[in-house]
């Protein structure tokens, strides 16, 4: 009992301290005041306590501060900051609507008001400006997110004109391309010359090349997180464009003001429609053919309350080559009519339902159900009609080849912010994959009777992928911020289960106010392989699961770097990385991608990859002149036990030097110009360099009847370098306000100095019969124009 007074004193001290440390949470959404569009990554900063946070992928933020007067500043690049001062005595909701700063003569929103590059714990991450995507010159005037990403350091483009991405030595299958959280398996139109994303419908694009936060998983080399716009909550708006090869239109607006909004957008090429009359004129019996692609995005966003929101989003895109051939003739009073149609179709279909629910001011949840399907189809069908005195007889046959992948997925993610020094994310999910590596279907009809109806090829394979993760963005004092995390995943296929525990870490140390050192480590697992031909992004590429012989892919990546904001305008980052990859697949020597639908395992080899290098990014985000200069110095190699006789060889896209410069300049309110210059070391290709007689040819001992060609000596896989790639593009946009909105004429020139860049090399004979190395180039200087409008 003697201790009682002391105990009471201790309790009193604890209670006093507790009351002093009483905290409350400020939470809410940050949005564009004009459109209601959420501002992802907006910065919320209390200047009194020096604490801050950022809005998540849904524009939601939460910050817990001590009971006191707070001076809150909410800012986002390109918007005027919202400053609010109030006494925090209870949990408070602060929804902030920011107004665009674009109309201000003096740009007031500077890097100092948003979280600067050196302050962020993440590294190897770039948020792509949609304005840049729309203002930079591109091939045929088609704005393209993926092609703009190719200009960034650490990202290599594939072949000329292709929208494929090769990030830090990884393959095109190793990019997790997410559209509103749903994986997109084939992000290319027209063999990769255009990507499937319509920039008008996109709100934000984030590229992550390393230091992957634990909430991402499933691919080795990059995450491209694309978020669609949610639709204007205030009033109906639209924008569109008419270009050389396609036109597009986007309309958004409220269904119920400030409650429900919609956005729809569509794009279609029309070369086939324009050319059809000419083709019909040139052919007998009205035969015709053509190519088109289209894509369509739609989204509905409904706000039940400040705590609960629902999003429905969908995407459908398709490419189609088709040819219709008609033939008719008569003989002995019998008329024969036949019509055949052949075509190649491929495309993605994506749908997602997302429900955001605020469980408490500190705990935000997002529940998502998604569907993703990629399908490739080759078909041929012929019908024949025979008419004579006795009647009409019909018959026909068809062949169809199908391949693809289909996912149903569900996941739940939580954001928990117990204090300004912690930002915890955790969640889990499950995906059911259905692989169709290659199915053939043949039917034959004779009148109403089906004489053949058969399906053969690879079996459909069902697999389950599951994952869970937890990460915490932790601030330790004023100098250190770290993001440790763990991602666990597993894959079940054909009764076999693969699992992986993947530690993740990224962190920064503030050397001084404007300079930080950063480090990251990621272990990644990928339970999918892509059987792809070298280089060309053909839709025949097949997604296949791991098997008993072919294990999942894994990577380990370490990155070190520094980040600095120079003055208030320039962001500079320098990073070095070292990445190992295992269980990569490549075609065997002599293997052809034709017929890979069956027995694909016998055509491939399994091996490892290594990539290391350094990247420099100098970026100016504000002012009349904006843009970036990116430089990458890298080495990327592969080593397969049964390829290149086990020796290390360079990856096809091993590119020692890669430079991307993208600059726009606003001359005045009506005119802006854009310039892009790219340079890359030539791709590595496999070419025979010497020729000699074979053993069989000189001895002819074992089999005298064989054809015995000379041997072309190939020193190593990918032994020969194509000439380097470089290109200058320029564009100018003329804007004009109209009564109904704004119109823009855009003129561009792709490959300004008409550089004949290499696309493909082969040997051929010239007029004198000499063997010469021959280069095919795709795109010479190509001017383009488009007309776009906003209302």
């Amino acid at each position, binding site marked *: 009992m003697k201790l009682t007074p002391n105990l009471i004193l201790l309790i009193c001290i604890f209670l006093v301290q507790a009351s002093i440390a009483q905290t409350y949470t400020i939470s809410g959404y940050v949005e564009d005041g004009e459109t209601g569009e959420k501002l992802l990554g907006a910065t919320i900063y209390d200047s009194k306590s020096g604490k801050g946070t950022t809005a998540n992928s849904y524009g939601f933020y939460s910050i817990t501060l001590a009971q006191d007067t707070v001076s809150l500043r909410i800012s986002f690049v390109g918007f005027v900051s919202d400053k609010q001062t109030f006494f925090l005595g209870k949990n408070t909701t602060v929804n902030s609507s920011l107004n665009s700063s674009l109309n201000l003569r003096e740009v007031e929103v500077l890097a100092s008001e948003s979280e600067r590059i050196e302050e962020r714990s993440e590294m190897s991450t770039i948020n792509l400006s949609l304005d840049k995507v729309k203002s930079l010159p591109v091939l045929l005037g088609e704005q393209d997110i993926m092609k703009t990403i190719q200009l960034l350091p650490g990202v290599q483009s594939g072949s000329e004109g292709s929208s494929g991405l090769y990030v830090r030595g990884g393959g095109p299958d190793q990019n997790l391309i997410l559209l509103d959280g749903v994986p997109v398996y084939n992000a290319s139109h027209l063999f990769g010359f255009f990507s499937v994303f319509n920039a008008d419908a996109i709100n934000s694009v984030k590229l992550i090349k390393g230091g992957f936060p634990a909430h991402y998983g499933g691919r080795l080399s990059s995450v491209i997180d694309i978020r669609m716009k949610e639709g204007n909550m205030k009033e109906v708006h639209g924008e569109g464009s008419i270009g050389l090869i396609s036109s597009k239109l986007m309309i958004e607006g409220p269904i119920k003001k400030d409650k429900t909004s919609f956005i729809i957008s569509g794009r279609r090429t029309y070369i086939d429609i324009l050319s059809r009359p000419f083709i019909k004129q040139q052919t007998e019996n009205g035969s015709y053919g053509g190519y088109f692609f289209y894509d369509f995005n739609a989204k509905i966003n409904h706000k039940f309350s400040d705590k609960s929101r629902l999003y429905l989003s969908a995407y459908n895109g398709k490419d189609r080559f088709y040819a219709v051939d008609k033939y008719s003739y008569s003989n002995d009073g019998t008329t024969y009519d036949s019509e055949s149609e052949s075509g190649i179709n491929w495309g993605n279909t994506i749908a997602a339902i997302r429900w955001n629910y605020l469980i408490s001011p500190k705990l935000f949840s997002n529940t998502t159900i998604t569907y993703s399907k990629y399908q490739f189809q080759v078909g041929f069908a012929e019908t024949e009609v025979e008419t004579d005195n006795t009647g009409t007889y019909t018959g026909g046959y068809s062949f169809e080849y199908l391949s693809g992948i289909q996912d149903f997925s569900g996941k739940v993610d939580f954001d928990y912010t117990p204090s300004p020094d912690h930002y915890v994310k955790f969640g889990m999910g499950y995906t059911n994959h259905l692989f169709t590596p290659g199915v053939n279907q043949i039917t034959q009809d004779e009148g109403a009777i089906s004489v053949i109806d058969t399906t053969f090829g690879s079996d459909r394979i069902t697999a389950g992928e599951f994952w869970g993760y937890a990460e915490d963005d932790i601030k330790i004092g004023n100098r250190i911020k770290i993001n440790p995390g763990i991602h666990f995943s597993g894959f079940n296929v054909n009764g076999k289960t693969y699992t992986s525990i993947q530690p993740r870490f990224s962190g920064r140390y503030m050397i001084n106010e404007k300079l930080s050192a950063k480090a990251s480590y990621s272990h990644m697992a990928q339970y999918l392989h892509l059987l792809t031909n070298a280089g060309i992004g053909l839709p025949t590429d097949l997604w296949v699961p791991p098997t008993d012989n072919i294990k999942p892919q894994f990577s380990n990546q370490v990155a070190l770097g520094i980040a600095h904001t120079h003055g208030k305008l320039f962001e500079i980052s320098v990073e070095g990385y070292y990445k190992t990859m295992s269980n990569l697949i490549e075609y065997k020597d002599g*293997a052809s991608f034709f017929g890979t639908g069956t027995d694909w395992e*016998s055509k491939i080899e399994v091996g490892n990859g290594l990539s290391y290098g350094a990247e420099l990014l100098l970026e100016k985000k504000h002012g009349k002149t904006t843009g970036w200069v990116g430089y990458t110095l890298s080495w990327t190699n592969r080593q397969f036990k049964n390829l290149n006789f086990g020796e290390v060889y360079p990856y096809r896209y091993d590119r020692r030097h890669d430079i991307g410069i993208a600059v726009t300049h606003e001359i005045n309110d009506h005119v802006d110009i854009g310039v892009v210059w790219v340079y890359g070391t030539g791709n590595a290709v496999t070419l025979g360099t010497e020729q000699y007689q074979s053993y069989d040819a000189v001895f002819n001992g074992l089999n005298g009847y064989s054809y015995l060609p000379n041997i072309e000596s190939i020193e190593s896989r990918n032994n020969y370098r194509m000439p380097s790639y470089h290109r200058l593009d320029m564009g100018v946009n003329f804007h004009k306000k109209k009564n109904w909105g704004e119109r823009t004429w855009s003129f561009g020139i792709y490959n300004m100095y008409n550089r004949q860049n290499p696309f493909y090399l082969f040997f051929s004979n010239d007029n004198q019969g000499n063997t010469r190395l021959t280069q095919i180039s795709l795109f010479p200087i190509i001017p383009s124009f488009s007309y776009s409008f906003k209302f």
Partner: protein
Amino acid sequence: MKNTIGLILNIMLISGLLSCEKYIAFDEDAATSKIVLNAMISPDTSFQVHLSRSLSVIDAGNLSSISNAIVAVYDDSGILVETLIEDSMGYYNGSQLPEENVNYTIVAEALNYADANAACAIPMLTAISEWDTLTINSSPNAAQNETEFQVSFAFTDDEQVNNFYMISVLAVQTSWGQNYSYPLYIETSDPKFGSDYADKSYEKLLFSDLLFDGETTTFNITLNDMSDMSYLILNLYSCSEEYYLYNKSYQTAVDTEGNPFAQPVQVYSNINNGHGVFGGFQLSSKIIYM
């Protein structure tokens, strides 16, 4: 504006015609010719080597044989076994029979060429222990007048080393007292040959002991086109790794030659400072009378 659009369309039309194919410099154009050394040795035959020259792949010159070269054979102690005598057309012959499991080195020296050398040993003989003709039938898959013939054979693999094998079958016809032989195409779905031979028929099946190391194993093959033959010769080659890698890769190169969609094929060579192959083998043959 109309004039501007018209001008742009005209420029586009012109530029479309410029998209091109052109000849470019080939960095290996000036590649120096190297010695091409080809030799396969077995205990039944004395050393024989053929020398020729390599050329740049764009050189239209002759891949001529090399004369007046010095070709010497050394054993694994570095002792000269013999210097080969030039015969004609690039052939250099010896008089001694090579022995199994001796690591021989061949060194070729010729004026204007860098010295080339290669090493190889003849593996131990693995003999066919059993063989049988399982069935003879007129398969619906076989062409008219052809018979499908199934052969099984067995041998015991040596557990101690990595072994490589090659199977070939010769059909022998007798006409006017003369024997004429020609290789038969072999089909198999036997997984022990590996997955490479699942779909097509080949004159030679090359395989390693990866799937039957140290075991006595029976193999099954199918032969077609058995018309008018007197007997078959079933050959089992016990190959050195060099022999196996060369034949395997050359077979693939021949098989895919001219296919623009096929991956390029590297043909194996173990010649230092040159091209070609130096391998060793031993042959076990069985005659199967029809």
